[in-house]
């Protein structure tokens, strides 16, 4: 792998930039691997990366039915934060945020992590109280957040309307170290790193069947042929129930569409991420100047990667009172992804009913922020066969045991 640096940039410029190599190699499927990861989204790639980095396991294949990063990893609004209410969530999301801080240096790939700050609006008395509670919880778990006043918020974002009338702004929860990153770059950066170790990334290759011997997987059937492996982990977000069905069990997960949109690019008006949980909308401004807007998920099962039209309207409508200027903007693009929702809105990183199959799913509407931490925790689970401290609370068993990690109240909006 050629290192990216100012020096290599200058050197290549003398060569009309023709000497750059492909970020990751096109590989051919071998007959056998130690570990197979299904799904080349952020979580699958990060899992492969930390398997190599933390455990020295590089006899791996990452199998992807479409193109690398073409799932939710390439479709999200890139918000990174760790101000969750529950201790278990704070631990894994904060670990992830910390890894993001140095990810560009570590991967030698600019993931454009921008800790511009995440501001959560409080627009009802109830929400104000709930956010104060979250703020206290964050402090206990070592997540850096503070409550800020409406006046301070207006100072930070002059274009915001704090006066209502319907949903005046009563305060805000501010996480200065949250922010955004370039979503594609996160997938590409991890892919480049693992490919340089000889990990095979196979695109356009769908897993279509699983062969089991007793309670163990013996081979994986793909559209490019059968492969045998010692262990398999599926990390396929919205398609988790489909993979589980192939493996012979069911999951406490439902797949629904979540949409987002961007406006035409405008001059800088907002330098942090703003989330309005009560009215179900959130917004940030991309480096290109587009306003990136997202909202709530659809309510019905869907695998079509397209959502309902009225949701786009609802999302924009929700934000207009607080940001009147967006009513004058034109929409540039709109898209959807299929997200995997669990009942408590927390992910699943777990062993499964099949001995050597592992599972990472359930990130739903908010897993981009978790990519590095989740990869870290899942790699440990696969390598050791038992979950470490980060992953243990997120096992499948928690539903049966009534040990929910309830983030549905704490994070009312999709993000």
């Amino acid at each position, binding site marked *: 792998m050629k290192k990216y640096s100012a020096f290599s940039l200058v050197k290549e410029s003398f060569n009309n930039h023709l000497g750059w190599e492909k970020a990751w190699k096109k590989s051919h499927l071998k007959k056998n691997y130690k570990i197979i990861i299904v799904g080349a989204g952020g979580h699958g790639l990060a899992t492969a990366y930390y398997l190599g980095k933390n455990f020295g396991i590089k006899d791996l294949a990452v199998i992807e039915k479409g193109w690398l990063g073409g799932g939710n990893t390439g479709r999200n609004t890139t918000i990174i934060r760790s101000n969750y209410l529950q201790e278990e969530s704070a631990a894994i999301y904060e670990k992830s945020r910390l890894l993001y801080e140095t990810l560009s240096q570590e991967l030698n790939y600019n993931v454009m992590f921008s800790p511009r700050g995440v501001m959560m609006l409080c627009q009802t008395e109830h929400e104000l109280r709930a956010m104060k509670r979250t703020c206290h919880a964050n402090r206990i778990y070592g997540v850096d957040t503070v409550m800020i006043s409406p006046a301070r918020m207006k100072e930070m974002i002059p274009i915001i309307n704090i006066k209502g009338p319907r949903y005046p702004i009563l305060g805000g929860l501010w996480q200065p170290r949250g922010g955004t990153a370039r979503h594609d770059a996160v997938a590409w950066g991890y892919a480049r790193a693992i490919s340089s170790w000889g990990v095979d990334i196979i695109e356009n290759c769908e897993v279509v069947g699983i062969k089991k011997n007793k309670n163990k997987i013996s081979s994986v059937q793909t559209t490019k042929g059968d492969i045998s492996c010692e262990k398999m982990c599926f990390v396929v977000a919205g398609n988790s129930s489909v993979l589980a*069905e192939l493996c012979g069990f069911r999951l406490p997960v439902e797949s629904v569409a979540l949409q987002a949109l961007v406006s035409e690019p405008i001059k800088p008006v907002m330098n942090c991420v703003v989330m309005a949980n009560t009215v179900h909308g959130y917004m940030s401004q991309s480096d290109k100047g587009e306003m990136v807007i997202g909202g709530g998920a659809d309510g019905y099962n869907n695998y079509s990667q397209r959502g309902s039209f009225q949701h786009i309207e609802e999302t924009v409508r929700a934000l207009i009172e607080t940001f009147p200027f967006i009513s004058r903007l034109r929409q540039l693009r709109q898209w959807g992804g299929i997200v995997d929702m669990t009942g408590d809105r927390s992910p699943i990183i777990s062993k499964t009913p099949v001995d050597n199959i592992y599972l990472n799913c359930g990130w739903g509407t908010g897993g981009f922020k978790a990519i590095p931490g989740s990869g870290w925790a899942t790699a440990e689970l696969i390598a050791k066969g038992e979950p470490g401290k980060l992953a243990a609370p997120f096992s499948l068993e928690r539903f049966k045991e009534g040990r929910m990690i309830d983030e549905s109240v704490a994070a009312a909006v999709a993000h």
Partner: protein
Amino acid sequence: MLKFTCPYCQVEADETELTPGGEAHLKRMGPGSSDQEFYNYLFERKNPRGIHFERWLHSYGCGKWFHVVRCTKTMEVFGTYSAQETNPPKKILDIVKQRISFGKKIK
């Protein structure tokens, strides 16, 4: 936008007039059931990429729950039937079968 005909009031209702209610024909488990059965009932879902039997509420209409058979991949709607029916009617199942074999043919 999804459109279903409500089997009660026969109105062809837009999705905005309706509320989705998830997988249909779940068997309710309660006291006396095993932990596994109760877990299956509460949490485990088929969540198929394909034919889905589901419940919808005609919330801005007659206010009644009814059943829909729909494909989650193509969004094709195969039919609706009342909430009192504990199994999908044969008429709708036949339509589903026909459409599936049609899909296989064009593939």
